[in-house]
């Protein structure tokens, strides 16, 4: 995805067990911060079809 032009911090991958509540909170916080810093996603957004 990065190779095709998606920002490095926009996509995250993690393993969290259902017993790891603290890790879950931690991951979500970090992901949210990283994505918020990038601003709204501009790519892979499909525009509505233009009708003449």
């Amino acid at each position: 995805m990065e190779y095709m032009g998606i920002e490095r911090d926009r996509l995250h991958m993690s393993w969290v067990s259902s017993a790891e509540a603290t890790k879950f909170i931690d991951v979500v916080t970090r992901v949210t911060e990283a994505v918020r810093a990038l601003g709204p996603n501009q790519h892979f957004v499909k525009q509505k079809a233009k009708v003449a």
Partner: protein
Amino acid sequence: MSGYTEKMRDIAGRLLKECAVDMVIGFRKGTMPMMNEPCFVTKPEDVQSLVWDSNCGINLANYLANRKEKIAIFAKGCDSRNIVTHITENKIERDQLHIVGVPCTGMIDKRKITGMVAGEILEVSETENTIKVKTSDAETLLDKKDVLQQNCALCIHRNPVIHDEMVADPVQEQTDIDRYAEIHKIEEMETEDKWRFFDDLLSPCIRCYACRNACPLCYCPTCFVDESKPQWVGKGQDPIDVRTFHLLRAYHCAGRCTDCGACERACPVGINMRLLTRKLEKDCQEQFGWEAGLSPDQRPALDVYKANDPEAFIK
């Protein structure tokens, strides 16, 4: 390589006469110059239609998936690696196949050649190192190495990796090849430039799916782009849909693609979609030391777990 033709007809004739196989898959002359087409011979008297030259770039492994009969197939380096992949993926049994190895010196790029001469090409002939192109008003002699398909210029497995017999002695493999120079260049671009680069690259795509159909790896009974319940991706030429198709097609070939170039060769608008598959090939090579289709005894990178698999991407 055109010298292989006679030997191939002999081999095919012998195998069919002995009833060692039900069918031989090779090439015959196409209706236009530089367009050989796949050919399925089932009777010994038909072997004369078989030919071999530098226009046999189609990957014949594409015609093996799910076949039940005994088949002899002519296999260049890349075809043989796709045959190995088919065997690993249970698309065909090894003992159904009689693999006739074809040491390869590369296939020529018809698009490049058409761009190099003026006028309509009437005839193309070759010697070991040269290509002679005849148009209505001129004859041009080209160096074969200048008109190779790009994947062939970069090829490091020209000899078949698996075979029951060979058409000729192995050819010298190319060494000192940097397979990934272009990929490095894209990797070093800024994010926005990457996005634009692929927008430009893919913008001519008409979604004809010739690239998918030419690829031996794409044997799914229903491809994700053809599904309608659910519809995974739009079917038109919206740039996001085009990109989604290409991204996913490349991913489905990850760790399996042999860079045979059949996809690029088939594309009517000349898109180099191998820039996507080659990136994945490079990643597989760097991260798992894996090259697709080298031996039927190895399990593919994406279906084994090793304790030292890279995992830095998991946060």
